[in-house]
């Protein structure tokens, strides 16, 4: 496509366009602007880069697609059969056969227990003997009374000093953190007080405004009804007024008073509601301001703490190195002395070989005796029960061997798949590939692409060489 564009334009224009393309591509690489490269990757990989360069594969599916899977599967089937054999208990036995079987199992378990204890004891015995002999040799070689003790003492001293250093650093960091937290708390408390005072002032101001308006409204109403009220009051002052008329005028006067009171009371209710809503709004704003300030303060504190932690670590690094260096130097001096002492080296090697040889010889003897004992027990109880019992431990050993072979084969297959995955990932611009996930989000599923690549490799290689697929040029590292 780019070459077609080149043909249609003059050389200068094309050069400028290509330069722009390169600049744009460089920008994409630096800033991960996915839109820019998505079209360039072609229609085969939609949304690939948009997934943030992270992919995954279904390893089980890939192993199934591998040419050696049939072999792996056959081994697995054999293992399953052996596993069942090793755990299956004979059934349909008579009471005496059952008793014989249980007695045999008990004796087999006891024999196994004894064998393991015996081995462990012998190992511990020879390890201890070797350690003692080497310590004696070291002491003689470096001219100390106790070679092992010298090294242990050096190590303990170094450990104590290092611990002290770390403790100091931790204490410094803790003090700084406490001081910061206290300053934050003071600042936030002050901020809270300011905000509360502001809310109170504004609320009081609004309350005064409303109160003034209510008074004015009350006066206006009284003014509106002034003439009617005066008229009624004048009529009531007439002593010759009949009782009925007096009652009438009094009622009219009361109606005017009641009307005014009702209007004023309604306004007051409205004002109270408005004031309450206004105060609530003010409190909400204050709360939001406080939260924002709290977040800013905490974030700033975190940054400061992190910076201080780095400072402390940086400052502590050389001290630890110096301390470690001193210890290493002391250790190196002792080791150097021992390493250059050929007599000591030969003696130590000799001690090690002798102990090892003794242990292996005894272990072999113990193991052979143990297996003989098992066989004898199984034979004895099989004869007594008139049925052939099986040795589950022998089956388990066979199963372990097969399982180890299967693991090796699987590792080989996975290694080969890994090379193909690497190649596919690099080709598709994916920088991290997971092989075992619980659920997919927006990451890219590379399973099919890898399956295709595996199939292509299998087709390209002969059956004899299929066990070792050749990685493609960019995927073999």
């Amino acid at each position: 496509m780019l070459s077609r564009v080149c043909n249609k334009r003059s050389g200068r224009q094309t050069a400028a366009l290509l330069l722009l393309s390169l600049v744009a591509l460089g920008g994409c690489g630096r800033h991960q602007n996915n839109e820019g490269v998505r079209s360039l990757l072609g229609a085969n990989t939609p949304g690939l880069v948009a997934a943030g360069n992270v992919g995954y594969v279904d390893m089980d599916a890939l192993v199934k697609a591998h040419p050696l899977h049939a072999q792996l599967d056959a081994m697995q089937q054999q293992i399953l059969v052996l596993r069942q054999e090793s755990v299956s208990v004979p059934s349909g036995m008579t009471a005496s056969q059952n008793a014989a079987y249980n007695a045999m199992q008990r004796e087999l378990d006891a024999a196994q227990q004894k064998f393991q204890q015996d081995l462990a004891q012998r190992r511990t015995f020879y390890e201890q003997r070797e350690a003692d002999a080497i310590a004696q040799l070291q002491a003689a070689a470096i001219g100390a009374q106790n070679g092992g003790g010298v090294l242990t003492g050096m190590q303990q001293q170094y450990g104590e000093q290092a611990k002290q250093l770390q403790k100091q650093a931790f204490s410094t960091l803790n003090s700084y953190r406490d001081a910061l937290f206290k300053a934050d708390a003071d600042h936030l408390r002050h901020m809270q007080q300011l905000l509360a005072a502001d809310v109170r002032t504004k609320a009081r101001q609004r309350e005064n405004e409303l109160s003034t308006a209510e008074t004015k409204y009350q006066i206006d109403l009284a003014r509106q009804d002034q003439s009617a009220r005066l008229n009624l009051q004048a009529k009531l002052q007439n002593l010759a007024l009949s009782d009925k008329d007096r009652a009438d005028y009094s009622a009219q006067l009361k109606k005017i008073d009641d009307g005014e009171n009702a209007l004023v009371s309604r306004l007051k209710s409205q004002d109270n509601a408005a004031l309450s809503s206004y105060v609530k709004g003010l409190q909400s704003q204050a709360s939001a301001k406080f939260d924002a300030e709290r977040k800013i303060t905490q974030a700033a504190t975190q940054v400061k703490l992190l910076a201080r932690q780095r400072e402390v670590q940086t400052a502590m690094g050389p001290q630890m190195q110096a301390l470690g260096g001193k210890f290493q130097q002391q250790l190196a001096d002792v080791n150097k002395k021992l390493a250059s002492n050929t007599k000591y080296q030969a003696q130590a090697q000799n001690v090690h070989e002798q102990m090892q040889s003794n242990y292996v010889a005894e272990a072999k003897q113990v193991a052979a005796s143990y297996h003989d004992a098992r066989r004898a027990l199984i034979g004895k109880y099989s004869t007594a029960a008139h049925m052939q019992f099986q040795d589950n431990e022998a089956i388990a050993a066979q199963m372990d061997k097969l399982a180890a072979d299967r693991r090796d084969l699987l590792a080989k297959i996975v290694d080969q798949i890994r090379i193909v995955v690497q190649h596919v990932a690099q080709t598709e611009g994916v920088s991290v590939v997971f092989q075992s996930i619980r659920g997919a989000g927006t990451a890219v599923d590379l399973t099919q692409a890898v399956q295709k690549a595996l199939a292509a490799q299998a087709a390209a290689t002969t059956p004899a060489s299929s066990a070792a697929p050749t990685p493609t040029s960019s995927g073999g590292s």
Partner: protein
Amino acid sequence: MFMHDKRRWPVILGLIAAFTLAITPQVLAIDVTDIGFVDQAALGQLGPFQAAQAQFAQYQRGLSGQFQAAIKGKNQSDQQRIYQDFNQRAAQKQRELFGPLLGRAQAAIASVAANKGLSVVVDKQIIIFGGLDITNDVENMLNQPGPVVPPINSPPPSAVGYVDQQQLDTLPKVKKANDDYLQFRQNLQSQLNAQLSGKAGAQRQQIITSFNNQLNDQQKKLLQPIVDETTKAISDVAKKKGLLLVIDATNRVYGGTDITPDVIKSLQ
């Protein structure tokens, strides 16, 4: 010279552009740096872990001898009680020996991850390609004497999620499916023992193969629907939260986004 030949410029620039296009994915690929991994198996081979392992093995050997002596002549219920008691003692010893080491390793991983600005650290075994390997840095930190100072800052938000299967297993429908399968397996096992009696060679193998096939079928019938439903729920939550993918909590070492509560809510 061709440098002065203007007609050649488009060709040269075309070649450069083609080359750039060819390497662009790799250039982009190096931008993802906030996913790290650590080889936990390798950390387990470090001296202190090996020493603790040897110490624990020795303790277990001793305990095993004591256990055999303790259950001698006891009835089944007493044996069961003694077995539980010994198991607890072994677990306690394991915590004593490995607890401080694991805490130290966790602090070292967190410290290295924080210094490198990683949002998530996973176990090496689930990464097949790419990612930042911090195993060496963690080993170096662990090899220093004295306590490891953990980072003050918590991990940044991560686009890699994780889910805790142990919590999902407590959901009634998941638990029921698991229990049903175990019950089926137990029943089948007792049938198998009866069928194998008196059989040998190929006949035995045939019976065992049939047993394994039945188990597989029942597994598909009872457990697969739950597995599929869970996988779908996890993917839905991941997409809703804009996550790249979700891993099992056992493979997460540091950071990441826990979506277990959302998945549980979705499955209820």
